[in-house]
């Protein structure tokens, strides 16, 4: 009886391991495909079936000026909207976590509403607003839109971080004669910096990858995702796969370096 049960337990745990590996494979398969097909030399225009191995796509990364400009525009919009959204989102989170005031709960709820709203509603309603106000569509409207959806993400991340903040550190700084301004820049800011970095990474990634809201409000401007979408019918050039793989590798390396630095800093502490 107990042997049977042991066998059953081992079988169950083997099964779980295999199932979990397959689930992970399912998650990673498309990423591997995207990377693999950046080394494909496709026959014809569509890059859907494997033909032969080549480094050409990586060597001709900047061949299509439209693609290069799309990548540039995406990076620019992501950078500007991340800076604005991280700044105003951090300020909002500080107000919501540290102060008691009327309508705090209501404002808290209001900040989360954009996250619960379908992207297509956000995109379509913003387009209606811009058209009604006769604001020409372009990079400016995209930045306005990207900051709008990123602010809420930043507030959520920062609020959780700030909730764990030890207020005694600020009190100690004030007791030792620091002005509020000095306290903020020398005590508070360095301590919440990891949270700010995490929010900024999140906002940058969301902005770089946004398609739905961008498609509504881009006008003639082509961002990287819009470029990909427009090329689906005609065939996506393999350089797109190369760019995407490059983004992936760069992000993953940055994250790994960040993790290593933090681990080293943690080890240095007594």
């Amino acid at each position, binding site marked *: 009886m107990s042997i049977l049960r042991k066998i059953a337990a081992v079988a169950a745990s083997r099964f*779980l*391991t295999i199932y*979990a590996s397959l*689930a*992970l494979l*399912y*998650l*990673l*398969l*498309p*990423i591997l*495909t*995207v990377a693999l*097909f950046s080394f494909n030399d496709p026959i014809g225009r569509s890059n*859907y*079936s494997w033909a032969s191995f080549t480094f050409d796509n990586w060597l001709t990364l900047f061949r299509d000026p439209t693609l290069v400009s799309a990548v540039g525009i995406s990076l620019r919009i992501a950078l500007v909207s991340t800076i604005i959204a991280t*700044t105003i989102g951090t*300020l*909002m989170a500080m*107000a919501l976590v540290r*102060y008691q*005031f009327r309508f705090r709960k209501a404002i808290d709820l209001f*900040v*989360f509403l954009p*996250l619960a709203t379908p992207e297509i*509603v*956000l995109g*379509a*309603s913003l387009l*209606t*607003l811009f058209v009604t106000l006769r604001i020409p569509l372009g990079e400016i409207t995209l930045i*306005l839109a990207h*900051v*709008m959806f990123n*602010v*809420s*993400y930043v507030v*959520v*991340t920062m609020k*959780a*971080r700030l*909730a764990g*903040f030890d207020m005694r550190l600020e009190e100690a700084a004030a007791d030792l004669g620091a002005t509020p301004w000095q306290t903020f820049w020398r005590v508070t800011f360095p*301590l919440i910096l*990891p949270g700010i970095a*995490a929010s900024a*990474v*999140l906002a940058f*990634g969301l902005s770089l990858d946004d398609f739905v809201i961008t498609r509504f409000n881009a006008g003639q401007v082509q961002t*990287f*995702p819009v470029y*990909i979408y427009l090329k689906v019918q005609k065939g996506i050039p393999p350089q797109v*796969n190369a760019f*995407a793989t490059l*983004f992936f590798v760069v992000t*993953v390396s940055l994250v790994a370096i*960040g*993790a290593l630095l*933090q681990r080293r800093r*943690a080890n240095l502490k007594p």
Partner: protein
Amino acid sequence: MGMIRRHPALVPLLLLFPGLVWLVSFYLAPNIQMFASSFWSGTLESGFSFSFSNWTNYTDALGKYQQQYARSIQYGFAATLICFAIAFPLAYFIAFKAGRARSALLFLVVAPFFTSYLLRTIGWRTILGDDSIILGPLKAAGFVDPAARFLDTPFAVIAGIAYNFVPFMILPIYVSLEKIDRSSWRRRKISMRAAGVPSVASPSRSRCLAFSRALSSPSSLRLATSSTLNCSAIQTPPWLATSSSASSLLTEITQLRRHSASC
């Protein structure tokens, strides 16, 4: 600075001001406008006019796009089930069986976020294509009709939706599973055995309890998430914060839904 010192109540308002202005202008105003325009009638040439009698726009839309609404709900439901079938065992494995590989595995779960959403979806077109690595050999061996295809079928659409949302289900389930104290199961098993209760029954029952608690209670889920975030403030790498903030977003949304349901 002087004014702030004299009126400390102004501080939170000043901090909130830029963000609120942004959200009111580019979130609230467009949505109110969209709501208002749902009572419009007219055409682009003759102009539009507002009237509450145009509430029939709603019944018109429901009638005209019935099929699309129904399909959205069906696909969403099917994708949710698939997500759960994939996410739960994986989250369970990472929480309890992965050991030292835990953070590496969590990283792999969020890895899809670092590749373009559109390209990952197009990646599935490659994998499921008509003569892809899956269908190609099956067709060549004669197991499958040469005209058979995955692409452009409800199956492909549901699989694609499920794929894109699986990480959003893995993370919150993982976070709440991680909070369950496994030793309490064992303790209960021992005490039950001492009381003469067959030991097989107890762990499975408490497991069910733990699972249902983890899944059904948004408040415990939320608690778990925010406390993970809090203690992660200094030690954890940013990607974990990013992923756990993604999961806390989800729980916030759940809260929000519950809140609006209770109103």
